[in-house]
């Protein structure tokens, strides 16, 4: 998530995050309203044009981000070839590709802080039910901040394990990793308190 914002700065970085996310939501609904392969093909081309407007480096980065999609494309394609439903397969694949590429486009051109501000604004109606949006936005930021910290911690523990064992650490480090996380949590609580608490 942290590295998802593209380091290639393009025009869309300057658009407000709320507008991009809103357009993305509408566009995705639109993709599901379309059902002919031709219309979806046009939509997919439009998304491709949008991504290409960021320049060749941005386009290459975006295509790399679509890599996790390939296995699904393959499965869907094979299934529809077997059942002989070519146009049905094209519909699913074009819709999926266009929707994911558009979502990536919004993510890659939006800074994390702006994304969190939108989430905070969207959560604000929950105030009616006594839930404050600020702590929730703070919690999200903390999760994003501490995932890499915890991954580093887990790696350190598993290295310490392997340094004194011929076997790989595997599940055995879950307990020490959980305890380390609790320990870190106490420090984070202190750090929050030192700068004015979570409120």
């Amino acid at each position: 998530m942290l590295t998802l914002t593209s380091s290639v700065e393009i025009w869309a970085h300057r658009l407000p995050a709320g507008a991009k996310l809103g357009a993305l939501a509408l566009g995705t609904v639109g993709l599901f309203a379309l059902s002919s392969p031709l219309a979806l093909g046009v939509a997919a081309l439009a998304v491709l044009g949008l991504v290409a407007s960021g320049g060749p480096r941005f386009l290459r980065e975006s295509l790399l981000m679509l890599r996790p999609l390939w296995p699904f494309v393959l499965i869907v394609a094979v299934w529809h070839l077997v059942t002989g439903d070519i146009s049905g397969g094209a519909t699913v694949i074009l819709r999926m590709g266009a929707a994911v590429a558009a979502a990536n486009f919004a993510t890659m051109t939006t800074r994390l802080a702006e994304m969190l501000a939108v989430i905070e604004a969207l959560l604000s109606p929950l105030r009616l039910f006594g839930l404050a949006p600020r702590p929730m936005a703070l919690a999200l930021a903390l999760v994003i901040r501490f995932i890499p910290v915890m991954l580093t911690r887990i790696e350190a523990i598993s290295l310490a394990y392997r340094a004194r064992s011929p076997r790989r650490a595997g599940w055995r480090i879950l307990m020490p990793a959980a305890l380390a996380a609790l320990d870190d949590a106490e420090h984070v609580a202190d750090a929050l308190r030192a700068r004015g608490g979570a409120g």
Partner: protein
Amino acid sequence: MDGIVLQDVHLDLGGKRVLSGLNLHLTERRIGILGRNGSGKSTLLRLMAGLIAPNAGVVRVAGLDPARERKAMLSEIGILFQNPDHQILFPTVIEELCFGLIQMGLTRAEAEARARAFLVAEGRSHWEAAATHRLSQGQRQFLCLMSLLLMSPRMLLLDEPFAGLDLPTQARLSRHLDALSQRMITISHDPGAVAGCERVLWLETGQIRADGPPGPVIAAFGAEMARLGAADADTDLFG
């Protein structure tokens, strides 16, 4: 009353006495607290910052109880933790810098403007959108210091500020700290880190063993550490 006052302070953690019978009035501009591992110096720092409250006795910072008057403490005291990973709360530099300011009542826009201006003044405007976990150890330490300085507290508490930093980074941080006008309390196990202070306290098993100008306190501390090191040190178990 100015400065930090401790009156007959006792503190237990996990059933063990960590600080006992502390009576201090700290008003000097540069104060060092020396002590071995486990002497209670980090706990003392957390107590002065109001992160924990004493079991008995009185702690006052500028006349206020730091554990209760949290809001007021934000502009009185900033604490720099030993491990920057325990202090950095946010994924990006700008958010980390803004957090304290927003807690002090600024709007997000005001806080961002202040943080940006500060980054520019520090020659680090390109840090703004950087991911905090990608920064080097020294850079993270510096980010922590910047977030504190932005809140412009009247006093800084530093917990082993030079531990884990290489020599050029230590020199740079030390030069930066020397230039600050704030009252500063530095804790360390390393006499070199507190040699430039006006007053040095030596904390041993939660009590003040020596208190005075750096020369004699550091000499006595050094002699005792050498004596302990020559004997079979560190054999006692917890509790």
